[in-house]
């Protein structure tokens, strides 16, 4: 039997039971590879459950620096009998299966085209430990130790990581290292180490990886840091997967940075609201009063916040919302990823509403775009929605380091202070388009004893904020809001356009977490002689360059992670290009991040190249 051979280029998947402590051991495994300087991208594929159901951790090692999902599994670490049948079927021929050999393999599912590595994890733990929790936890540490030998992981890095993880709980360090060593020794004495697939430090890495001193970080933490750096002082939220860690991380950093050491008083306020409606109401109230406030949620929360988003759009109140998307509709698959809130977010609320959206693709962008969102929300006096997703928000990504320019100053937008009002001779008109950009001036409550007070409402009003049902005045206001949206085009993050090596009329268009597998598919196709220009969208409203790009190409593949091709529809709706025939949807909506192989194969089939051997063999061929 052929065994898979590869250095620094493989996919390993861990099949665990939720709540058994596998997450920290698996995280340590991925981090060790990262520390060895080898490009790695780990992903949690977890159930909506706290304890007992199957959970997976997929780690891709890519010497070419591809961070998206590739597709296919080269090695399975199987410690969950519940999912054994499915897990074993996913391994590619010639791949490896590490399993707990305390009990014999379930022969009904055994295949002959893969290589087995049995380690009696349960037995070793029963022998070594008396405490039942330890017996469970150390199984994970033992297999990481074994993988260290099997895959050539630098053992000293693992020891360092254990030391860092248990800093302050020193008595846990020795038993953890002992467990790692047990696994290591078992592997060395029972298997030929390293395996055909293994790691090697010091290998060449591609330029885009070499360029930065990368960090390993999740997008939610990065967005939270963005809120800290943007000077957010109020966070109101309602717990919902996969966004919860945004506010958790915000609180963690605020505790460190925003408590006055003298008085113990806080320069921030975090309120766990009774629901998402209330969370958004608080954000709007705080922003109305001049504090930078934000919330984080996911699809169901966006639905609940819609009414308030419409109010903020119409009453012109800034707000920042981090939408960490998951699979919908309704409760959908709460722990699986999608990019399926695009239309719901772009048009959230009744009546003619449109919202500014940002599409970060990396943790570094989650950080920088969150900082930018607070500026733009205040500049435009409207909500900004940061469209992250579960894959980006909750998984650790290799990312360029976070950067902040100390000379940068917040843009608080058009706000008249008490002094401004004092010096003003003309009458203050809250909704008066003084500068011709559709953006009026605002005042904070309490700014001046006699000037600048106005009535904020969701009902129609004139330029001086007085209630009116005069249709002409209403239309004037609605048109000004549209003009403001036009102004937004000059302020939002621009799209990233990359021309192909050879002139082409074909293009790929994508955004957010679809970017990594799309760039990878692009390189694969390039090697096959298929050339495509690319455009990575970073915001809505669409800028002129997006329209030009669509105009200039005959065929544009729009890659996104939802069923209905929502971004394609938004492009058709919101650009002035006749594009219905040329925009081709490439979608994935099974809740897992789209793979490079899938993108490449769909594009190949559109190109009429059908005689390509599929990279992923069909399931029935796998099971012997």
């Amino acid at each position, binding site marked *: 039997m052929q065994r898979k051979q590869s250095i620094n280029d493989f996919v390993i998947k861990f099949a665990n039971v939720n709540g058994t402590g596998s997450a920290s051991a698996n995280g340590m495994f991925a981090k060790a590879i990262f*520390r060895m300087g080898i490009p790695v991208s780990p992903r949690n594929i977890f159930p909506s459950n706290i304890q007992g159901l199957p959970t997976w951790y997929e780690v891709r090692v890519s010497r070419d620096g591809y961070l998206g999902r590739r597709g296919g599994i080269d090695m399975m670490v199987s410690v969950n009998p519940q999912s054994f049948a499915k897990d074993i079927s996913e391994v590619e021929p010639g791949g490896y299966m590490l399993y707990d050999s305390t009990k014999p393999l379930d022969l009904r599912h055994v295949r002959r085209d893969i290589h087995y590595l049995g380690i009696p994890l349960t037995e070793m733990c029963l022998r070594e430990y008396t405490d039942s929790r330890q017996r469970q936890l150390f199984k994970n540490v033992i297999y990481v130790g074994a993988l260290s030998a099997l895959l050539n992981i630098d053992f000293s890095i693992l020891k360092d990581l254990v030391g860092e993880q248990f800093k302050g709980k020193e008595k846990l360090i020795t038993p953890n290292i002992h467990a790692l060593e047990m696994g290591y020794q078992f592997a060395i004495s029972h298997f030929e180490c390293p395996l055909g697939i293994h790691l090697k430090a010091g290998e060449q890495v591609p330029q885009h990886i070499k360029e930065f*001193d990368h*960090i*390993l*970080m999740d997008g939610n933490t990065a967005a939270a*840091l963005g809120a*800290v750096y943007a*000077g957010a*002082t*109020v966070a*109101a939220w309602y717990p919902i997967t996969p966004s919860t860690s945004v506010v958790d991380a915000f609180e963690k950093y605020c505790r460190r940075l925003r408590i006055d050491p003298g*008085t*113990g*008083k*806080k*320069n*921030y*306020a975090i*309120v766990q*609201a*009774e*629901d998402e*409606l*209330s*969370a*958004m*109401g*608080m*954000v709007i*109230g*705080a*922003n*109305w*009063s*001049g*504090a930078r*406030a934000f919330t984080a949620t996911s699809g169901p929360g966006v639905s609940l916040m819609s*009414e*308030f988003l419409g*109010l903020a759009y119409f009453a012109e109140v800034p707000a920042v919302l981090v939408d960490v998307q998951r699979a919908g509709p309704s409760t959908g698959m709460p722990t699986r990823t999608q990019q399926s809130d695009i239309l719901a977010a772009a048009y959230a609320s009744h009546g003619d509403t449109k919202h500014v959206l940002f599409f970060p693709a990396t943790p570094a962008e989650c950080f920088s775009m969150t900082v930018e969102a607070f500026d733009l929300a205040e500049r435009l006096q409207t909500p900004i929605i940061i469209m992250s997703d579960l894959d980006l928000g909750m998984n650790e990504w290799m990312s360029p*380091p*976070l*950067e*902040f*320019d*100390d000379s940068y100053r917040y843009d608080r937008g058009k706000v008249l202070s008490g002094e401004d009002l004092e010096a003003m001779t003309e009458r203050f008109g809250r909704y008066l388009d003084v500068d011709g950009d559709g953006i009026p001036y605002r*005042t*904070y*409550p*309490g*700014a001046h*004893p006699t000037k600048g*007070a*106005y*009535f*904020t*409402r*969701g*009902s129609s009003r004139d330029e001086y904020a007085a*209630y009116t049902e005069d249709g002409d005045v209403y239309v004037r206001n609605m048109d000004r809001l549209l003009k403001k949206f036009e102004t937004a085009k000059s302020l939002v993050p621009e799209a990233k356009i990359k021309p192909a090596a050879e002139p082409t009329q074909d293009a790929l268009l994508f955004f957010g977490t679809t970017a990594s597998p799309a760039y990878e598919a692009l390189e694969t196709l390039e090697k096959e002689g298929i050339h495509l220009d690319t455009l990575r969208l970073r915001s809505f409203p669409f800028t002129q360059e997006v329209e030009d790009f669509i105009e200039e190409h005959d065929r544009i593949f729009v890659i996104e992670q939802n069923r209905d091709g929502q971004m394609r529809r938004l492009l058709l709706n919101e650009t002035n290009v006749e594009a219905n025939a040329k925009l081709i949807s490439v979608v994935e909506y099974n809740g897992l991040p789209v793979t490079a192989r899938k993108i490449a194969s769909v594009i190949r089939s559109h190109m009429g190249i059908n005689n390509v051997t599929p990279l992923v063999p069909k399931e029935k061929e796998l099971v012997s």
Partner: protein
Amino acid sequence: MTYAKPAFRHPDAKTNEVGCTRRDYEGGLSTLCAGCGHDSISAAIIDACYELSIEPHRVAKLSGIGCSSKTPAYFLSGSHSFNSVHGRMPSVATGANLANRDLIYIGVSGDGDTASIGMGQFAHVMRRNLNMTYIVENNGCYGLTKGQDSATMDTESVSKKGDINPYMPIDLVRVGIEIGATFVGRSFSGDKAQLVPLIKAAISHRGFALLDVISPCVTFNNHQGSTKSYASFRDHRDAMPVDFIPRREAITTSYDAGVVHEACMHDGSVLRLQKVNEEYNIEDPQSALEAIAHHAKEDRILTGLLYIKRDSEELHDVLQTAAKPLNTMTQRELCPGSRFLDSINAGLR
């Protein structure tokens, strides 16, 4: 309906401590029906703010949706105001208050806005003891949509169409006391003598002050058979007179009979009221609930200050927010700068 407001100002109009006349606390002309109880409440708010010598711009007015929620346009035109979303005023008030703890927050809501669509936010804003005055202009019906029963409508009260309400009413003061409001009063739009001092006391209270003010709907709910009509309410009401004596002012009012209770507020002002009986301790929630229930059983409605907890932790105390309003914090105070980010990056390698 009056459609123009006279510009005339009396040259000798009295001014208060901050140099404002009563006119400075007025707002735009009301567009509510002539005789609406809500307009009397607006007038009472104007009196209360004038008498307390509050600078109008130090007040933020908030409301939801409905007849009641329109009224912030009819008082204190020198204050910022936010007429928000139906039933969601408490969250907007919470956000505004978190941003700037130095302003006085007056929320106006109705029985539909509070007891139906907004019941969740109403409950939670009380639970958090947000420092604000929350006035419910309670008329038992939905006026703007032409008179449907609301959740505060009494069982067997007859609607204008003749339908008998089969449902249990939600008694907002009882809900308030149960859930954690630290100042709970009930009054009547037609009793200025009780309402004005109650509003003054509510504004001076540190924490969440709930005022359930029965305010008859002259158009849809003022007929015979309705329990929220002027006539019915006057007949079934037991009033506990209230006096509010601002800080440094001599106490001059005296009651002839009954049990007088005096309470010193956190700012040094004094609240003086006449209770219905000796046993009723307005600082004990159980005693207050019993008194309310006892009156209800006798088909009487108890009004006045029903419950007060003078020393409580309002939301900012719980959150330990800085004394300086969050909306005045500068980038210097809030942004950690690139050096800290370098240490974050280092920790992620």
